[in-house]
């Protein structure tokens, strides 16, 4: 009877570290498939020895694949488990691995984008900015910067770890986890942090600009409202930034000496 081929703890450390480079070779042909392949190299090295097996392994991964970079760990964990099953004869058809890999592209991107790009990232940055605007001390500002990085990277590193662990444990079943409802325990607190921090920044700026002069308050309000209107109703990228700048210059030109 052939010896059971099993991935070792060191392989998972290697995969985890390699996952930080998953988007290095982002391209329009294969998207992040080369990154996925690169991250799974420890699996190939552990499970396959012959040239044919390694060639077949690479063929399974060097075609179109895309994912959110942090949520790639779910794919990496489950694919590692499936490869292990295949190498030990518990999975007959390797095409199932390819089909599964293609099927999780959508959920990985959807949940990752919603959770991190639209949730945790803006909330962490806004919390950092709320701290930065209330103090003049550089050393305290640096503490707020460090807090921002911790606030952001704690869930980031956790998801990378949890994804690898759960993916390996669940293999085919990982798609059941990949729903935004399962990450609301992270998303909801960050939404509250983000909304409150944005309110704090707006409130603080309103009061501090009013304390300077009403003209500063007017510029702040006009900038805020015009940018919000142009971005939300017209979906413009640069004009919402340029218009407030031009208005501030016009006010600055006509109201000198204020």
């Amino acid at each position, binding site marked *: 009877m052939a010896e059971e081929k099993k991935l070792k703890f060191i392989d998972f450390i290697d995969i985890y570290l390699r996952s930080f480079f998953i988007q290095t070779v982002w391209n329009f042909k294969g998207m992040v*498939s080369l990154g996925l392949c690169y991250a799974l190299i420890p699996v190939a090295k552990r499970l396959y020895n012959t040239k044919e097996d390694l060639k077949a392994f690479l063929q399974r991964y060097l075609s179109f694949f895309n994912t959110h970079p942090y949520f790639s760990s779910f794919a990496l964990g489950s694919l590692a488990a499936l490869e292990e099953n295949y190498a030990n004869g518990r999975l007959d058809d390797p095409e199932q691995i390819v089909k599964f890999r293609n099927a999780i592209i959508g959920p990985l991107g959807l949940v990752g984008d919603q959770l991190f790009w639209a949730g945790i990232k803006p909330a962490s940055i806004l919390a950092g900015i709320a701290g930065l605007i209330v103090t003049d001390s550089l050393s305290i500002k640096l503490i707020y910067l460090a807090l921002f990085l911790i606030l952001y990277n704690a869930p980031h590193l956790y998801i990378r770890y949890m994804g690898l662990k759960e993916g390996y444990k669940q293999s085919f079943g990982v798609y059941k986890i990949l729903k935004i409802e399962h990450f609301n325990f992270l998303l909801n607190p960050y939404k509250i942090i983000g909304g409150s921090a944005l*309110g704090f920044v707006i409130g603080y700026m309103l009061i501090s600009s009013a304390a300077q002069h009403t003209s500063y308050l007017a510029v702040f309000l006009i900038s805020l409202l015009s940018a919000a209107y142009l971005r939300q109703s017209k979906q413009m990228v640069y004009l919402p930034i340029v218009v407030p700048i031009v208005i501030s210059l016009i006010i*600055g030109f006509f109201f000198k000496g204020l």
Partner: protein
Amino acid sequence: MDILWLSLAGAALMMDTTATFQIMVSQPIVACTIIGYLGGDAAMGLHIGLLLQLLWLSDLPVGATLVPAGNYASIVSAAVAVELIGIFPEKHFMIVLLIVLYSLLLSYFGARMVRINRNWNTYFFNKAVRYMEKGSVGAITFINYQALLMHFIIAFLLVFSGILLGEFLIGFITRELSVTWNETARFIEVALLGTGAGLTLSLYKRNEMKTWIVGGAIVALLYFLFQ
């Protein structure tokens, strides 16, 4: 020599945007502070980073979407601002205005460079496919390192040329324009913070968020009154 070191640091920070790690040290508030520190004024770097950060926050890099290269623009802008505000402190607002306009141009150009870079990455992908036939897993690792090196070189060249051009152009305009322009531009910082906050509101437009936004504003009022 200073520009060389700043560009190397800027390129390393830019790598965090997509190519590696993504631990957010490439975000303007962090990256500009580091660039400011290396340029001799960390506080000014942080100040510029704070002004620019919110401008790019609502651009979400979802899927294959190309968004303005705000991190690149901010890194270059911070380096130029720290240098020029150090020389012309009396023209602070004017320099901030020019820096912001320059960063808008850079962010547009940077986004186009990201597209070009992604096309160049296809070369590495095709190379990996060729090695696939040989079953060489070592080659995949090597190709990844090559792509990483190419990213760094491109980032370095972008930052280096951006700083050189910015210092020349904005330095020239700053020297030529009289200090009265500084008074005209004195609202620029408050306008940028207002713009940034307005843009970021689009991320929190759901009804349930309004309570938290108002709550945050009330806390700010109380903080201001009792500080």
